[in-house]
């Protein structure tokens, strides 16, 4: 419990900063929606004249243009990018920082098992992400209701927003497994930025080839927004892979961490 509280306190400032960043980004973007939806109405009439195949290629579906859900799916790209960095950064730093800051001797000579250390750290990281997501969800839903005058499905909006949490969890797990495998992580941020952007770019590339198999490679593509909007549910195969990945990564992290050599000062 002590460790858990200590970690929460250590990450208090960073969680607040990330939460504020996510909340302000979603507020800024959603506040632009009214102007854009007016323009989109005009565009909608235009686009009807174009062949269906072409609209498909661009991922535009007529009924959704100018709706808040469509707009939200677009801006969510930036939000998921920020969220992924937070998750990865948290995962990559929370376990490795003891070695980096030469506090591993202190912590690991206390009468607690390494499994316990790991569990407290994991729980603390999870709590940080949950807090971030609660604030984000509230801000996003309030904002969406303020700017959209027409009725829209709150369920789909929440489903879309919740993908942020799943994405963060995947990157958290990835961050932890990387940080326990690498003997010494000197600087966390370059590592996490590099990884997140690599996946982000892979994601941007798969979106045009339309290759389903490639989508499994990057967490950014596990949640297809047009699918969620259409079916108001997640794609189960991707959910299974995501959950499987998180579970395996976490179990592997426990196994490696309990056995590994800790570099002391």
């Amino acid at each position: 419990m002590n460790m858990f509280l200590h970690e929460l306190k250590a990450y208090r400032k960073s969680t607040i900063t990330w939460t504020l960043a996510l909340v302000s980004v979603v507020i800024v973007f959603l506040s632009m929606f009214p102007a854009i939806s007016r323009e989109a109405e005009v565009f909608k009439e235009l686009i009807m004249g174009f062949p269906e195949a072409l609209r498909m290629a661009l991922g535009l579906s007529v009924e959704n243009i100018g709706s808040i859900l469509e707009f939200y799916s677009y801006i969510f790209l930036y939000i998921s990018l920020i969220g992924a960095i937070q998750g990865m950064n948290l995962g990559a730093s929370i376990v490795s920082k003891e070695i980096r800051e030469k506090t591993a001797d202190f912590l690991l000579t206390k009468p607690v098992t390494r499994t316990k250390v790991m569990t407290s750290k994991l729980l603390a990281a999870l709590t940080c992400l949950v807090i971030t997501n609660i604030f984000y969800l509230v801000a996003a839903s309030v904002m969406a209701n303020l700017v959209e005058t027409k009725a829209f499905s709150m369920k789909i909006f929440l489903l879309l927003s919740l993908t942020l949490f799943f994405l963060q969890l995947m990157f958290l797990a990835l961050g932890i497994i990387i940080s326990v495998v690498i003997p010494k992580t000197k600087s966390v941020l370059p590592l996490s930025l590099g990884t997140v952007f690599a996946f982000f770019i892979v994601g941007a590339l798969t979106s045009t080839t339309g290759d389903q198999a490639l989508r499994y490679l990057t967490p950014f593509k596990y949640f297809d927004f047009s699918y969620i909007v259409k079916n108001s549910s997640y794609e189960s195969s991707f959910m299974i892979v995501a959950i499987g990945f998180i579970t395996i990564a976490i179990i592997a992290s426990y196994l490696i961490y309990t056995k590994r050599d800790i570099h002391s000062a």
Partner: protein
Amino acid sequence: MNVFMREMKANRKALIIWSIGVFLMVASSMVKYAGLQASGQSINDLLVSMPQSLKAIMGMGTFDLSTANGYYGVLFIYLAMLATIHATMLGATIISKEERDKTSEFLFLKPISRSKIITAKLLAAFVNVVIINLVMLVSSILMVQKYNHGEAFIGEITRLMLGMFILQLIFLLIGTALAAISKHPKTAPSHATGILLFTFILSMAIDMNSRIENLKYLTPFKYFDAKNVNSSVGFEPVFVILSASLIVVLLSTTYVFYRKRDLNV
């Protein structure tokens, strides 16, 4: 000279990885262009009629996507993001890492002045940034050439890369200045990244909403917009002056503050 060589060597691996990343990014995006090309001219017709704000959300701006060169303009913003992340990280860590790795006592006990050390480090960072820029330039020219159909483009890409270079310098120096000012140098990379993400998202927001156009002076990403640089507008004097003064101010901040500060040992 020794410090310079040491820094070059320390950053060699990162530089190679980043260069490969840059090349892959350019290459894969242009392959994607080939796919877009295959779907025909009509995409461009559709895009012409699309409202500016919608295109901004989709990250397309006002480029003629039917030409390899116009498509490259879209790619530019992602390349700029990649290059500035590299520059920011490099700037922030090259100054702060001595304290992070507890090597500052070793380095600063040597009979060379702090200004000399900073100069050597800045020069090493500068060379790194130049190399990234050249890799970008060469791989862009090669890849665009492959898909180009007889239009002149080398001049335009060179102009864009010149803008990119100034952008890289600004962010490199934001990193060094923050690391020099900050009492806790460990936090410099994260603060610098915060500024980077903020200015990037601000530039996206400006694209979407013309009412906040006046904020463009706040974000370096808007100083050398691909669509201006390659039109009759060219490099706008006001932004060139603004960048030059930013560079001078940040550079002197780095020197002045680092010379005077207490080092954490």
